[in-house]
């Protein structure tokens, strides 16, 4: 599966990329901010997008809203991977259209499991 990962912290970017590639077996494209993510998503087809919450230029929430309001990218499932772990933050993220919300610090294996189950749901929904 092709996954787009937007994360400004290089260490976390590398860990998440490695986890998704090595544990999940996905093809991962990385970028450093929401603006880049939005442009990349418009240009190529991705199965899922992972967004960090706090990023320069365009934060996770803004990027999610932009992706959801742009018809070609509106159906791509979005997962937040963020340090904002308050109930209100999670609700805000889910309201913006996110399919999953993972709070940092995260267990790489659990990240992959979560993404796996979201992709599974997506596969079940698409034929219907």
């Amino acid at each position, binding site marked *: 599966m092709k996954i787009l990962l937007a994360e400004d912290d290089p260490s976390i970017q590398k860990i*998440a990329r*490695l986890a998704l590639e*090595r544990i999940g077996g996905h093809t991962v494209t990385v970028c450093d901010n929401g603006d880049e993510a939005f442009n990349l998503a418009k240009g190529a087809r991705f199965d899922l997008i992972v967004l960090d919450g706090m990023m320069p230029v365009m934060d996770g929430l803004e990027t999610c809203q932009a992706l959801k309001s742009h018809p070609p990218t509106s159906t791509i499932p979005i997962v937040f991977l963020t*340090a*904002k772990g308050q109930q209100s933050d999670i609700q805000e993220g889910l309201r913006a259209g996110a399919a999953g919300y993972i709070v940092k610090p*995260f*267990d790489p*294996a659990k990240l992959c499991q979560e993404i796996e189950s979201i992709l599974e749901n997506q596969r079940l929904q698409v034929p219907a």
Partner: protein
Amino acid sequence: MNTIQKQLSGLLWVLFIVTVVNSGLFFKTHRDLQESYEEVMRVEKIISTLVDLQESFFEESKFQRHGSSSYKKLLNEVRQDIRRDFKDLKVLMKLKVSLDALDEIERQWSRAQQMNDPTQLLIYTRSLISNKQRILKPLGEKVQEFTKVTNVYMVIYLVIFALVVFTTTLYLKNRIFAPLNRLNERMRLFEAGEHTLDPVQARSDEIGVLERQFHQLADRVAHTVEDLKEIDRVKTDFISIVSHELRTPMTSVKGSLSLLLSGTVGKLDDDTRDLLEIAEKESDRLIRLINDILDLTKMEAKKMPLNKRWVSLFDSIKNATQGVAGLCDMLHVKVTVTDIPSSLEIYVDTDRIQQVLTNLLSNAIKFSPKGSSVEVFAEPTDSGAWIRISDKGPGIRAEDKSHLFQKFSSKDTPQSKVIRGTGLGLAISKAIVEQHGGRIEVESVPGSGSVFSFFIPDTRFIAITQATKEAA
């Protein structure tokens, strides 16, 4: 100072003096009128005496001409009476009545007296009768004048009285009630949260002083509120900065360790794996510690709103027991749930109460001897419900109970080497329970275990239908 008091008492003095002066004037006028009236009555009396005298004189003269002794005697008596009466009549002079007519009569009387001539006396009497109107007319005028003066006094008094009453009312309105209402309005605004009040042009009287003092107080309170808001902002910023700044590096540490341990980036020898496991375990503990500190800070700063709803107590306890199932297996301890009515619901923030239950359960499990069981039961009361968790651990000494719920007061457990707590669990549980309006307690006998209990005030029993039973 005391300006209003002085001004008000000044006004009341004016009113008092005006009243006293007027009372005096009324009294004097009344007395003068009374005197005038009495004099008029006396003149009337003299005249009627003279008329009687004239008649008796004619009667007498028929039988006893000049020199009758009884007549002379009577005449003398009459003379004396009339003289006295004339003396009294002169009192009228002080009333400034024109008594020329009386002077004339008196002159005639003395002439009649000298002559001792009844004919002259007759002339005098007639003259007096004809002068009656002339005597009484000025008296009537005087009475009218007095009435007029009295009326003027009355009008002046009423005008002054009305003026004083009007001034007092205006004074009370402008100097007392208007500033009081303004102060009242400002206090209401202040209480409603309007802390920046417009500057006030207060007078130097008592209410002005009160207004100025209120403004000074309000200013001080407003500054304090601003300071508190600033502290609150700093605290909120601190929570969010710490939250982000600590979580980001911990994400990298934890993520790297997990990835290395998962073996996806390369094979590990046993020593390396042991060391990485230690690092992972400690990083987990550090993450728990960071989360606990943030939770506690948020609760202390009242930044953790409760998302309350009605939930089944039984379900909450079941979820919490499921959460500690791994720990139970690891430490060979059983959790048994008894006496929880399935119809009992509590009005709580589920996640937070779950946190309390998990904390208390994992503590009980960690302190329990191998093979023993931890019991969970509920005691509904009229005002809420107690949820109790009892263990057969070593118990708590009385002197340790008081600081049990303080931060970082945790004791080493027999299982400390396996799972180490953060020392904040009970402090967080206490804060959560108290935020729900409840309280948390511990009863313990060293050597025979402990019972940790917390009270939730909002509870209810719901009717259990067949459907809910089946669902349960």
